[in-house]
């Protein structure tokens, strides 16, 4: 299963709810304003590092770069993907849950 999150974790609790209510082994893709949750050095970092122990996390690189960050600012273990990678993830998973 693929979970997608597109809202900033500082503004909405979408990422928090997603991580709380998703199963081990699932994939979580952060895009649009949710990419702020994938960055090193924020108050959210520990939460994401913890989630990485049981879940695969991805982040859309064009949305990172648009916001003035770079791939090297992303928490290690969170994989960066481009638009084609986003499509691959959606195609390979049976279901997608969008946490709007």
């Amino acid at each position: 299963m693929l979970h997608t999150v597109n809202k900033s974790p500082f503004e909405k609790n979408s990422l928090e709810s997603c991580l709380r209510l998703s199963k081990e082994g699932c994939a979580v893709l952060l895009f649009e304003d949710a990419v702020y949750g994938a960055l090193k050095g924020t108050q959210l970092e520990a939460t994401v590092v913890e989630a990485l122990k049981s879940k695969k996390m991805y982040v859309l690189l064009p949305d990172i770069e648009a916001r003035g960050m770079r791939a090297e600012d992303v928490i290690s273990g969170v994989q960066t993907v481009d638009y084609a990678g986003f499509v691959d993830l959606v195609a390979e998973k049976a279901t997608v849950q969008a946490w709007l």
Partner: protein
Amino acid sequence: MDGEGGVIKKFLYVNRKAPYGTIYALESLEVVLIGAAFEQDVSLVFIDDGVYQLKKGQQTTVDSGIGVKDFSKTYRALEGYDVEKLYVDKKSMEMRGLSTSDLNVDVEVLDDAQMADLMAQQDIILSF
């Protein structure tokens, strides 16, 4: 303003949204620029995800990114319109792992009490 007696009011624009996920940040900037024509006493504050509007190095071109206008450069042009008072909420910035060296304009960093004081001094507050 001469014909109206030149009353100058204190305007505060409150920015609390990240730049590209919604249109609020760009719309706020448009209103600031329009308002600048009226020669009022303008201040801008950046709170919560609004501090991300000022992040250096935004890349949004069609080739390398999301293919929208990078309006972050416009904040640097504001002083040309006599909009020179930019303030950032200290807690919001620190929570996001940012410091003033990550921002592309000069700002004054305010603590909770200072921010509350600034808001209390205004005639008009516009929130985005």
